């Protein structure tokens, strides 16, 4: 996670120029990335960007049209049993035998694996101990999702695929799921995650690849994505009635915007700029409402990259279909 690996066996997943087309329709158009052992790698993108297609190719559920893919050194298209022994899968929507209990299901799926973790330990890890003897069909949505995770973990996998693991969760259930996923990393597992929630990527991922239209349009650490760390900070506040933008003193800024009473100042020297503004405001007894200083959020970068926000800056690469 914190050293730079150079050898191929340090990589859990290698993907090179992966393509998948359905007839005329190109779902994934030439995607390349590596996932290191022990890291949480996240594919982030809107619905229909091709995330699930990629995950299901890596899981062995779909065949690729062209390109290279290796999962734990094995071609997933061979659907080798040794691969299935080492990989845990949480599919996006997937049923489970409704008439068996939580304990029976974890035990049953555990038996399929040559190497397995103790049933009750796994149930405890996903916090389903209270529902141990409940039939699967009586579980709530969030409990079902945690059962999915338990079934993926009981085989003690090296690598875990999580396809949108918290979609439809309430905020509390999501926090709970996140802490469970975090605890997987502490066990040294590699996690391959897809999501369309930016905060999920931010919280969980060591590295993020943003997808749009079947292509990766940006990748990096969540705090570096899209040059986020290099961008000007934004100082925002509201001017009271009767005070114009021209009354704000000179300060080091890349630009100023005025929308109604709301001012946004882009600056690479946020500390100095903020000090100048606040000194002026205090000295001239001007009350600045909603004053804030912030780096662009991951959400801003994401919306900009995926083209769903109102920002003027063009996206670096267009998807070719």
């Amino acid at each position, binding site marked *: 996670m914190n050293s730079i690996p150079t050898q191929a*066996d340090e990589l859990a997943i290698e993907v090179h120029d992966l393509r*998948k*087309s*359905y*007839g005329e329709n190109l*779902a994934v158009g030439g995607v390349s990335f590596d996932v290191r*052992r022990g890291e949480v790698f996240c594919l982030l993108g809107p619905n229909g960007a091709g995330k699930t297609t990629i995950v*299901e190719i890596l*899981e*062995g*559920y*779909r*065949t690729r049209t062209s390109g290279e893919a290796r999962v*734990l050194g094995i071609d997933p298209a061979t659907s080798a*049993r*040794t691969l*299935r*022994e*080492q*990989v845990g*899968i949480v*599919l996006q*929507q*997937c*049923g*489970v*035998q*409704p*008439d*068996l209990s939580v304990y*029976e299901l974890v035990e*049953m*799926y555990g*038996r*399929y*694996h*040559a*190497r397995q973790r103790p049933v009750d330990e796994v149930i405890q890890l996903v916090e389903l101990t209270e529902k141990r003897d409940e*039939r699967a069909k009586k579980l709530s949505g969030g409990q079902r999702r945690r059962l999915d995770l338990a*079934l993926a973990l009981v*085989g003690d996998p*090296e690598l875990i695929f999580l396809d949108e693991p918290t979609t439809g969760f309430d905020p509390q259930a999501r926090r709970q799921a996140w802490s469970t996923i975090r605890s997987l990393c502490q066990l040294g597992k590699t996690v391959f995650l897809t999501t369309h929630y930016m905060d999920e990527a931010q919280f969980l991922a060591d590295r993020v690849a943003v997808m749009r239209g079947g292509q990766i349009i940006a990748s990096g650490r969540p705090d570096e994505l899209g040059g986020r760390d290099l961008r000007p900070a934004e100082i925002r506040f509201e001017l009271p009635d009767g005070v114009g933008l021209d009354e704000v003193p000179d300060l080091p800024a890349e630009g100023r915007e005025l929308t109604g009473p709301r001012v946004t100042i882009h600056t690479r020297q946020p500390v100095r700029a903020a000090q100048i503004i606040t000194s002026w405001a205090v000295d001239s007894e001007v009350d600045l409402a909603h004053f804030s200083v912030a780096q662009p959020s991951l959400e801003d970068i994401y919306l900009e990259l995926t083209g769903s926000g109102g920002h003027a800056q063009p996206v670096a690469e267009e998807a070719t279909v």
Partner: protein
Amino acid sequence: MNPAIPQSTLGRDLGLVFWQIRYEQRAYWRNRGRGVFTFVFPIMFLVIFASLDKGQTISTRGNIAFNDFFVPGILAYGIIATTFVNLAIGTAILRDQGILKRMQGTPLPRWAYVLARIGSASIVMLMMTAVVLGLGAAVWGLDFRAGALPGLIVSLVLGTACFTTIGVGITQFIPNAEAGPVVVNLAVLPLTFISNIWFPIDSLPQALKTIAGLFPIKALATSLQYVFDPRHHGAGLDGTDLRVLAIWTVVGVWLMIRFLRKPMGDVG
């Protein structure tokens, strides 16, 4: 760098089949609707119709007791319900709920899972058989000759092989789980009326008898009726019907393999 994964062996996989049968059994008996539809129905039909027809004889068959015909006929119906109907409807549900897809992602070999499903259906079939034949003998004087045991065993084995494999294989023609009972009943019910299940087809038009003769339902019913027919002696092996069952078993295995070869994820 990985801890070594123990090599899987055939012995271990057969052990998995055994365990899986236990889980399948638990799930089967907990689902009351399925149990009624496949296990209780044949027994209910037996009790109703065998009671109504008690004492009647069949003039076209040398005046044998009607229930010497009807009990093995309903046994055939029960075998079809507990194997074919059970597996066809059940597999369509497993597919639609994504359970087959989930199973595909585990190390359990596909053949082992299907064998366990078939094994579990066969256990239900044997229990139903015991109840039908037990009731038949105790209440309606069904006569069984020990000498006809080979015929009974071969009919049960071939019938089970035939109707379990077709049951799994036909899932590829069931568009969704709701359509399961419709497809299955369309395939079974009309044929039962020309296949010696509810009444002897001796006086039906030849064309209908010919059609029924092409399908395994009449073959199974007739081969079982041959076993229990008091006019027959010998091993109870009814050559023609058993051959039809054997041919349909080959068809069933082919259908099943065709269904199982398809990946569960690729929709394109």
